[in-house]
């Protein structure tokens, strides 16, 4: 077993040297540009809502996010978001549009298995972890902070 593990390790090295490396710098520049543009577009939507509707900077986030996810639905539905993502990487995954794409793509994909078991059952198969870890970590952090405030530490 030990010698087998050894050769496995050696092979891993051997294979790694021959792997096509990920173009990290290029990927980062693309992620920066596309991610930045999505956020700028979000800012544009926010500004629009502040000027023409009764939203303040405090609560304009809600309609902005909803609008962005609406556009995500169109891009995902017409099969463009995954192409954008191959180019942009994290640039299109990290903004809230990426969260929307995770939900919407799963919903569209599993339409073939029906609305209840397919769409309903699979909608959050990718985005669920984001909600789980968001909610649980927020719960722990808020709990600690509240206790510290109540005990007068903060």
């Amino acid at each position, binding site marked *: 077993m030990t010698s087998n593990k050894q050769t496995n390790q050696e092979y891993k090295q051997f294979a790694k040297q021959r792997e096509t490396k990920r173009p*990290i710098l290029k*990927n*980062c520049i693309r*992620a*920066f540009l596309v*991610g*930045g543009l999505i*956020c*700028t577009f*979000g*800012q*544009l*939507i*926010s*500004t629009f809502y502040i000027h023409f509707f009764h939203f303040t900077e405090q609560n304009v*986030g*809600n309609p*902005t*996010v*909803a609008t*962005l*996810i609406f556009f*995500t639905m169109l891009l*995902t*539905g*017409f*099969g463009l978001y995954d192409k954008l993502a191959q180019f942009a*990487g*994290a*640039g299109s*995954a*990290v*903004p*809230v549009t990426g*969260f*929307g794409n*995770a*939900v*919407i793509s*799963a*919903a*569209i*994909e599993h*339409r073939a298995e029906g*609305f209840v078991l397919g*769409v309903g059952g699979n*909608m959050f198969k*990718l985005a669920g972890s*984001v*909600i789980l870890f*968001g*909610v649980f*970590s927020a*719960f722990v*952090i*808020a*709990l600690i*902070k*509240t206790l510290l405030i*109540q005990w007068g530490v903060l």
Partner: protein
Amino acid sequence: MMFFWAFVVGGLICVIGQLMFDILKLTPGHTLSILVVIGALLDGFGLYEPLIDFAGAGATVPITSFGNSLVHGAMQEADQHGLIGVVTGMFEMTSSGITSAIIFGMIGAILFKPKG
């Protein structure tokens, strides 16, 4: 000016995500989950709100703001109702992202077929 900083800050958060993809070889699921936790932590230390004031959508559009607003909602409710508010206030400020994803997910499933 706000647009410029939204671009820069939003872009930089995405670069952090890209580095997690490429250097740490994490899946999108792992990367986004970690970013959400980071957002929640930053708000726990009171650091995320200033970033939003500075960069606007550059800080509210990336998924990190999801963690931030979860903590924010919980803390706001906790101020009024004590510990129980931590649970009841959690979704106070973030309902729109999840709600719209569900609604547009359903509409998308009705309107579109996967293109492959």
